Structure formats: structure tokens, C-alpha cells
């Protein structure tokens, strides 16, 4: 699938349009239902083809039958002009509204003929028997005697007219039904799409929560149930204005429809948003966890767990005893309170016993806890002192080892020098002595670097903070190293913007930092390439970057190069202690800055960051 499609489908505008369409469709459906109601269209006409089989006609027949019963019971005056023909005979009397009251006459109207004679109901050839089969009146107990004769028939012309109206009704309803079904399909599709893309954004595959997601799930469910309920109450409460069928809607009805539109749109917008929020939460697997019920359950669980869970204390004897004592105290106190109430209820004088016992328990608890706290304090102080002691020992160790290394080294260097001035030496011996002198001098540098690093990383290095200009420091360092830079044959490109970069740091240490980093770049750059040194102000932070192209393949990680004694070239042939970058990093940190190394192919990049001092204005004399 193309990313283009994904970009489109995850576009917020697309999502918004889909959602609005969804709400509009639902509203339109509800309105059309309301409209159908107002138009008095009978939905039965869709399912029942013929009027004679319809419920409406069944009701007509029932009315007619009940009319005959009322006549027989003497409750109704037989009317001459009704929509149907009738003939009623109870031997004594005969009531009818036709001249020719023969069964044949009635049977002519074969689609709507009902007859009761010889104690049985019969119907016309094409008549729907439902009214007489189902009707309560078929029960003999209700006064329908064996000897009664009843004929009912609806005239053919009446039935044909009704059938035509029925058909028209169906024809008018059909478009609404098709639109309704299409609407439901559309809504399901839109809902599916929205469910799929909700919480997703262009450009990533993360799940993004929105404001509504912070509502607890059970509250969301409550709203999803409550809102449609209120909505249905509003809708049914909407003024239903019956009217002359097929006439255009009147003003009252139009207002009623507008009322329904607003209520529906509002309700389904709310429900839709809540539903999508729940889907997002489901996708993020926090639908359950992010609910009040879950939280309440978890709280209860955690309460009992923390009350009875002594496992995490079992490793520490002091807290273990504290915990069990506390548990015992809570339980016995609870029992004592319960016992007091019971004894008071029993109205015995013994009810003062549990409080007395409780006092004893409190005394025991406080006493025991105090002892435990004392022990904990003691242990804490001991460990603190131990730490201080080890810190002091570390300083002493550095100083002593430093002295012990430097003293013999002094002798070596001095005697090597004396030896090199000895005139009686052979040429070979002179060469050897030269090696001795060189290597002892290198050892001197390594030892010195090593102790600088040891002191700064162990936090035993005094740092003199003062306000210095980082830009000036970089310029000074580069000017100071000018000789080395020229010797190296590498070009230097600097980009130092105008202005002052005042920071709080130790100038001497920071000089070492830049010296080491530039030195490193000079040593390991590819011949003929350039070293880039840049300084910039990034939102109140001075950022210095030193970039160079390595003259060899840097097949190591940043972590490896920053480890003490590591050098880029595995052969370790170049001069230097291998501590340069470590010292630079440690010194930067000691000064309160940030030191970072990046390796990108052959590009070696060091970034040094310092917070700029507050008042930038101060110039230097």
C-alpha cells in the first residue's frame, strides 16, 4: 500500500470530514423517519403486498365484528351507512344494511367476506382468515350463540380503492427505505475507517492519545449509554403534529424536525467521539486499565498486598522486624477495638479490659520501634562514615601512588640524561640511551595525564570557577597551538560568531579540553583535509563543535573511544597517552559542561556545550 494513501487517510482533515459525514448520515436517517411519521406512511405496506392481508385491514374487520357483537348484545344501534355490508340474525331479529341479504350476495365480495353460521366462522375464497382465526370473538364463551348467523363483507370497490392507496404508500416509502439501508452501510464503512485510523498520525506509527482519552473508560461507557437515552427521551418528546396526509409539512412540524436534527447531531457527535476514544484506548491496550473500576480494584488489591506482603523486607532484618511488629500491632488493635465494642454491647464491666491491654500493646510497639529506628540510624551512619573513609582513602591512594610513581621516574630521567652526556659511550649505546630518554619522557606524560584523569573523575580536583569568554578561549587555544597546526599540514576553518560567550568555568581546565580535542584532530586527521571549529549560541547554550576527517577507518564505537586508554589506531604507534579525550570529557564535566563525541563514517565530531552565564553584557577589561 502506498504511503500516499496512508498520508491521505491519516490526514486530520480527511478524518474530520469522515466523522462529520457519519454524524450527518445518522441525523438524516432520524429526520427521514420523523418525516415518514409525519406523512403518516405505513411501513407495513412494504412487507405486505395486498391490503386485504394487512394489519390495517385486519383492524377494520375486527371493528366490523365487534360492531356485530354490540348489535347482538343490544349495545349498539345498527347503522345503515357503514363501509361494509352486514347481515345479523339471532332467529328472533334480523339486522342488515342490504336488500338482498343472501349468502351469495355477500360471497361475491370474495376478497373480504366473513360468515358465521352453524356455529362456525367461514371466509371468502380469497379472504385473509386471520381476523376470525385470531380474534377473541371466535371464543364461544363471549355470547356468540350456535344459532346466530352473521355475514360481513367489504364491497369490492372499497377494497380496490384501498389496494391502490396501499400500493402508492409502498411506492412512496421505498426510496426512504433504500436510502436508510444505504445510510447504514455507509455509516458502518465510515466507522470502520475511523476506527482504523484513529490515534494514528502521518509520518509515524505511534499511537497518539487525545484529550478525551483521559476520561476513565467506565465513565465513557456510562456516557455512551446515557446520551442516547436522553436523546431518545428528547426525540419522543418532540412535538408530533399529525396532519392531513400528503399535505406539505406545516411550520410546527418544521420546527419539530429542526429540534430533532439538533438533538441527534449533538448526541451522535458525542457518542461517536467517545466511541473513537474507546477504540484508541483499546488499540493502546489500556481500555481496561484506564477505568475507575480497575483503579479501585487495584487499590484494594494493593492495599491488602502491601499490608500482608513482607517479602521485600525479608532481606533486611531491621525492617523485617519493624514490618511484622506493625502487622501484629494493627491486627491486635483491631481485635481489641472489636472486643471493646462487643463487651460494651454485652453490658459487662469487663469492657475496660481490652483498652488496658491495648495500652500495653501500644507501649510494646513504640518501645520496639524505637529500638529498630536506633539500629537503622546506626547502620546508616556507619555506612555513611565508611563511604567517607573510602573517599579519603581514594584521595590518599592517588597522592601516594602518584608520589611512588614519580620518584623512581625522576631518577630514571635524571640518570638517562647523565648517561646521554657520557662521552665514553659507543654509538650503539648512545642510540639506546636516546630511546630511554624518549620513553621515560613519554612515561612522564602518561603518568601526569593518568593522575589528572584519576583526580577529576574521582571528584578530587579543585576547580576555580570564573566568568570566561568561551570564544576568546578557543581563539587563544588555537593561537597557542599555532605551531603544531602549521606543522601538521592541516587547514583549520573556524566559524566564531560576533559577540561574547561568557560561561562559568575553569579556564585552565577548559584550555586542556580544547587543546586535547584539537590535538586529537591534528594527530588523526587525513592529510590535506580540514578541521572545522565552530561556535554558536543555541538558546542560551554555547555550543562548540570540532569536526575532522579521520585518516583511518574508525571501526570502533563512541563508547569504545571514550574508554580510558583507548585510541583510534589499534597499533598504538602514535605518541600520546591515549587519555586525551577522556581527560577532555572529564574536565568538561568537572567544569559543568557537556562533552559528546559523534562518529559518522569518516567524520569525527566533538561537541562541547556550556550554559551561557546570565548577564551577557559584561565586557572584559
Amino acid at each position, binding site marked *: 500500500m502506498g504511503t500516499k494513501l496512508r498520508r491521505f487517510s491519516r490526514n486530520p482533515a480527511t478524518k474530520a470530514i469522515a466523522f462529520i459525514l457519519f454524524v450527518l448520515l445518522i441525523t438524516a436517517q432520524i429526520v427521514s423517519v420523523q418525516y415518514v411519521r409525519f406523512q403518516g406512511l405505513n411501513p407495513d405496506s412494504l412487507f405486505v403486498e395486498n391490503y386485504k392481508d394487512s394489519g390495517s385491514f385486519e383492524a377494520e374487520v375486527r371493528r366490523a365484528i365487534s360492531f356485530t357483537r354490540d348489535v347482538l348484545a343490544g349495545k349498539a344501534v345498527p347503522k345503515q351507512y357503514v363501509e361494509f355490508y352486514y347481515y345479523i340474525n339471532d332467529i328472533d331479529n334480523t339486522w342488515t344494511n342490504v336488500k338482498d341479504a343472501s349468502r351469495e350476495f355477500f360471497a361475491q365480495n370474495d376478497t373480504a367476506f366473513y360468515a358465521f353460521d352453524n356455529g362456525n366462522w367461514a371466509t371468502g375464497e380469497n379472504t385473509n382468515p386471520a381476523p376470525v382465526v385470531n380474534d377473541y370473538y371466535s371464543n364461544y364463551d363471549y355470547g356468540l350463540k350456535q344459532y346466530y348467523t352473521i355475514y360481513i363483507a367489504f364491497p369490492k370497490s372499497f377494497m380496490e380503492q384501498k389496494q391502490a392507496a396501499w400500493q402508492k404508500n409502498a411506492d412512496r416509502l421505498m426510496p426512504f427505505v433504500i436510502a436508510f439501508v444505504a445510510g447504514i452501510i455507509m455509516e458502518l464503512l465510515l466507522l470502520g475507517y475511523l476506527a482504523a485510523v484513529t490515534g494514528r498520525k502521518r509520518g509515524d506509527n505511534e499511537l497518539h492519545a487525545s484529550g478525551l482519552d483521559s476520561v476513565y473508560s467506565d465513565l465513557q461507557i456510562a456516557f455512551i449509554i446515557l446520551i442516547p437515552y436522553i436523546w431518545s427521551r428528547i426525540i419522543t418528546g418532540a412535538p408530533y403534529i399529525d396532519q392531513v396526509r400528503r399535505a406539505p409539512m406545516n411550520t410546527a412540524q418544521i420546527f419539530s424536525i429542526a429540534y430533532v436534527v439538533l438533538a441527534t447531531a449533538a448526541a451522535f457527535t458525542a457518542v461517536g467521539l467517545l466511541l473513537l476514544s474507546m477504540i484508541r484506548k483499546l488499540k493502546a491496550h489500556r481500555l481496561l486499565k484506564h477505568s475507575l473500576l480497575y483503579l479501585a480494584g487495584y487499590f484494594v488489591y494493593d492495599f491488602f498486598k502491601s499490608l500482608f506482603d513482607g517479602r521485600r523486607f525479608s532481606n533486611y532484618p531491621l525492617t523485617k522486624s519493624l514490618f511484622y511488629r506493625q502487622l501484629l500491632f494493627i491486627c491486635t488493635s483491631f481485635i481489641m477495638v472489636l472486643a471493646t465494642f462487643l463487651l460494651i454491647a454485652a453490658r459487662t464491666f469487663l469492657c475496660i479490659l481490652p483498652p488496658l491491654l491495648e495500652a500495653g500493646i501500644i507501649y510494646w510497639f513504640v518501645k520496639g520501634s524505637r529500638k529498630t529506628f536506633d539500629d537503622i540510624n546506626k547502620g546508616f551512619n556507619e555506612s555513611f562514615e565508611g563511604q567517607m573513609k573510602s573517599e579519603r582513602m581514594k584521595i590518599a591512594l592517588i597522592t601516594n601512588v602518584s608520589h611512588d610513581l614519580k620518584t623512581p*621516574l625522576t631518577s630514571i630521567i635524571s640518570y638517562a640524561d647523565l648517561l646521554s652526556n657520557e662521552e665514553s659511550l659507543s654509538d650503539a649505546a648512545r642510540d639506546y640511551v636516546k630511546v630511554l630518554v624518549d620513553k621515560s619522557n613519554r612515561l612522564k606524560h602518561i603518568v601526569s595525564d593518568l593522575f589528572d584523569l584519576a583526580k577529576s573523575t574521582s571528584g578530587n580536583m579543585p576547580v576555580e570557577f570564573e566568568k570566561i569568554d568561551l570564544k576568546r578561549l578557543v581563539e587563544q587555544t588555537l593561537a597557542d597551538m599555532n605551531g603544531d597546526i602549521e606543522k601538521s599540514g592541516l587547514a583549520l576553518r573556524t566559524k566564531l560568531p560576533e559577540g561574547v560567550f561568557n560561561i562559568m568555568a575553569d579556564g585552565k581546565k577548559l584550555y586542556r579540553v580544547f587543546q586535547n580535542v584539537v590535538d586529537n584532530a591534528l594527530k588523526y586527521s587525513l592529510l590535506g583535509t580540514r578541521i572545522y571549529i565552530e561556535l554558536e549560541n543555541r538558546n542560551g547554550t554555547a555550543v562548540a563543535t570540532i569536526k575532522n576527517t579521520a585518516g583511518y577507518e574508525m571501526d570502533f564505537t563512541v563508547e569504545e573511544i571514550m574508554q580510558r586508554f583507548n585510541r583510534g589506531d589499534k597499533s598504538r604507534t602514535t605518541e600520546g597517552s591515549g587519555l586525551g579525550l577522556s581527560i577532555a570529557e572529564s574536565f568538561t564535566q568537572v567544569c559543568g559542561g557537556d562533552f559528546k563525541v559523534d562518529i559518522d563514517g569518516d567524520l569525527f565530531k566533538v561537541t562541547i556545550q556550556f550554559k551561557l552565564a546570565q548577564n551577557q553584557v559584561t565586557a572584559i577589561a
Partner: protein
Amino acid sequence: MDKARILVVDDDREISNALEKLLVREDYEVSKAYNGLDALDMVMTESIQLILLDIMMPKLDGLSATLKIREKKNIPIIILSAKSEDSDKILGLSMGADDYVTKPFNPQELMARVKSQLRRYMKFGDIGNGERSSRICVGGLCLDTDAKQLTVDGEQVRLTAKEYRILELLMSNAGIVFSAEKIYEAVWNEIAYSVENTVMVHIRRIREKIEINPKEPNYLKVVWGIGYKIEKV
């Protein structure tokens, strides 16, 4: 004049012996002591022109010895120590030492420092100070503003006009830090615009002329991130 006698005080025999040989090679006479107390005795009884003194020693350490010696004698003291912290150096110098050299030292450099101290003490130490108002002196540096000449421990050093004016500015305001721009404007009489490099080049040249070890200057110092100054002694 007789050969100068130098007292070497170090509890490490190898180092003392090496120092003795190095000094003898430079034509000095050498006495040796292995702790602070012996050193004190020898300073009082013998005629000694300079002391090389270790700090960490039995019986009496170098710093206390320096204090004691200073009560009686004005001879140059160079402290030789494995302690390389700035605070150690400042402590040693403030106790009355004239120089502070960290172990392991470069023998040539140490000899140069010995020579410099002796020269200042024997030839030149007592005469100059504050006699003529046209002389600005900081430690072993003396600038004669009439003759436009600089002497380092009594030895004349040749300076270019710019170098001279930089030194004059810094020495007459010893201890004060000047930015490159200030120096440039005072010396070149032009508006300064990215002059750090120009000034630094001159500073380096001056250092090579007046410092024993230009990489660890005693006088002309860079205050990193701020400017330059001549250390007040």
C-alpha cells in the same frame, strides 16, 4: 669568584646522587642532606648559595624547612616535589621558596632554573631593587624604560619594539589581566579586530626570550578565556 655551593636535600638517595652529578657537571659544588633537620644544620654551618629541597621528607618536611631557613637566610630555595597541584605550588612559593619544580623534572630545565636563581642572587639580587624609578622589576625581569632594555636575571635580552611595548604595558601593571584587544590598541594604536592570533604570536615570542620553560611560564601567563598578564611576584 668561588664555585657556588648547592645543598641538595632529598631522602631518595638515587635522586640526590643524580642531582649531585648533574650539578657537578655544571661546575657547582654540592652538599647533600637526607632530611629537613640535617638540611637546617648545614645551612647554618656551611656557606651555601642555593638549596634544592624536596617536600616529602622524614623528620622535617620541606615546607617547614623553608620557613625555618627563611627566618635566617635569604638564599634562593628551589622546591622539588612530586606534588603537582597548583595549590601545592602556591603554598610552596608563599612559604618563601623562589621556584617550584615538579618531579619528574627535565634535568636541563632544572639546571637552567638553578642558574637563573644563582645569577639573580649573586650578581644582581642586592643591587637593583627600586633604585631608579625608570626600572620596572618583576622577579628576575627588569625593564629599563630609559634605555628601553630588558634584563632577565641580570642578562640582557633583545626585544623588538612591539615586544618591548607589550612587556612594558604588562609589567607596569603586573597582576592585571589584559585582553588581546586592549593590548593591541595600546601597543599598535589601531582599532582591534580579531587580533587574538597576532597578540598570541608576540606573547609566545616574548616567552621564548624570558622564560626558562615557555610551556610552563613563570612570568608571562595566559589567563584562559580572559586575557594575558605578568604574574606579580
